[in-house]
């Protein structure tokens, strides 16, 4: 039996690894921001006084949250070239679109919960003072809802970091894809992916700690 030689050439492979990590972080930031904007819109829509608005918003959030992120990414990966046969663009853009749609639905749900969590008495006080719907939302509800949304928001951010790994499947060059490319060169799957896992951990664990710290502060 041949003893397997497990090794990893950090010098040669760290640069592409770190480049991949950079793309991952970029994906998280861009999709996170886009998702927050989408989430704010759909989250407030879900508690709007008009029923059809609520309905439409909830169809979007419920459906996206009920299917795997991989399905969203694969669908865009195959469908977009069919819709735009003459366009060529990097899969990173497809990745951002998919991740943003995904994030928007989850963040919308977080906002919906946070808006509901604002005590009813606050709304009543605003009403008794004569504020209209927009004023109530803007000055009384949303500031309080945003604070409540932070811990679950950080929780989702961690999930988003992990979700970005799936863009490697549609050939976007993130950290996981870098890992696969390196593995096909050095045939050291174990070592390479351990490094990949470590890098994900380094990105995600501080967020976990931040979330827990913030939660303690709120209590």
């Amino acid at each position, binding site marked *: 039996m041949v003893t397997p030689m497990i090794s990893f050439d950090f010098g040669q492979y760290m640069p592409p690894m770190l480049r991949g990590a950079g793309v991952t972080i970029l994906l998280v930031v861009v999709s996170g921001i886009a998702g927050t904007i989408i989430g704010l819109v759909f989250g407030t829509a879900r508690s709007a006084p008009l029923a059809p608005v609520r309905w439409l918003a909830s169809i979007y959030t419920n459906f996206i949250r009920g299917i795997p992120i991989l399905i969203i990414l694969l669908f865009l990966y195959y469908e977009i070239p069919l819709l735009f046969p003459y366009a060529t663009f990097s899969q990173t853009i497809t990745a951002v679109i998919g991740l943003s749609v995904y994030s928007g639905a989850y963040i919308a749900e977080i906002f919906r919960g946070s808006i509901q969590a604002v*005590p009813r*008495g606050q709304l009543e006080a605003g*009403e008794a003072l*004569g504020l209209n719907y927009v004023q109530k939302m803007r000055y009384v509800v949303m500031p309080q809802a945003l604070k409540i949304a932070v811990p679950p928001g950080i929780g989702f951010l961690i999930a988003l970091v992990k979700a970005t790994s799936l863009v490697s499947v549609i050939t976007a060059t993130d950290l996981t894809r870098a890992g696969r490319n390196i593995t096909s060169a050095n045939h050291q799957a174990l070592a390479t992916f351990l490094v990949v896992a470590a890098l994900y951990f380094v990105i995600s664990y501080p967020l976990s700690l931040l979330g827990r710290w913030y939660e303690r502060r709120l209590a």
Partner: protein
Amino acid sequence: MSRTHDLGPAMIKVDDLHKSFGDLEVLKGIEAEVDEREVVCLIGASGSGKSTLLRCLNRLETFDRGHVTICGHDLTGSKTSLHAVRRDVGMVFQSFNVFPHMKVLDNLTLAPMKVLKIGKAEARQRAMALLEKVGVADKANVYPTKLSGGQQQRVAIARALAMQPKVMLFDEPTSALDPETVGEVLGVMKNLAEEGMTMMVVTHEMGFAREVADRVVFMDNGVVVEQGPPKQIFEAPQHERTRAFLSKIL
């Protein structure tokens, strides 16, 4: 109670008011009237409908049947602008509902600026004067969570007064307070009454009712059982249910 003004014309008129929550009928034909500058205290057991009645007066609750007129606004009509009503009617809640994410001063200036469209400087002046009046002027730039319950409730009263309402509704304003701070809030309310504000107060504080109210209304099970000047209600109640209620709490 010593007072500087006589009573004026009717500010609140309630006529055959009915309200149900699902199958439960909570208000079974209420008739009531409150004159200008009058102070009316609503007393009764939990579930008698007194808070619901109060909340119908500024349409925080809708009612099923009957008529309500407050400050000249007919609440029965669907065309009535709720904002117009709420500008004239101030409300103080049992759980204060002070906005925790704004400083005390901002709590008072928000509605006057946004609803009455008053300028920032004037709103602040008005706010500071009111905070002086209720005795928390030194806390103007503090966040409400740092204040005691009694202080927060006084801020809530000042916040309602900042809109210069014609009528003030109080929904069990001291029920959630520690005994030590109840007195400071009742003191503010007493001053308000002496200055001639029209007030309707749902309360368990019988001492306050006896001392400050022009009229005490006893409700039980969704109907007005008895009403009259405090001396009569507390010392010579006419109805058996009134007597039963008072004997349990006094």
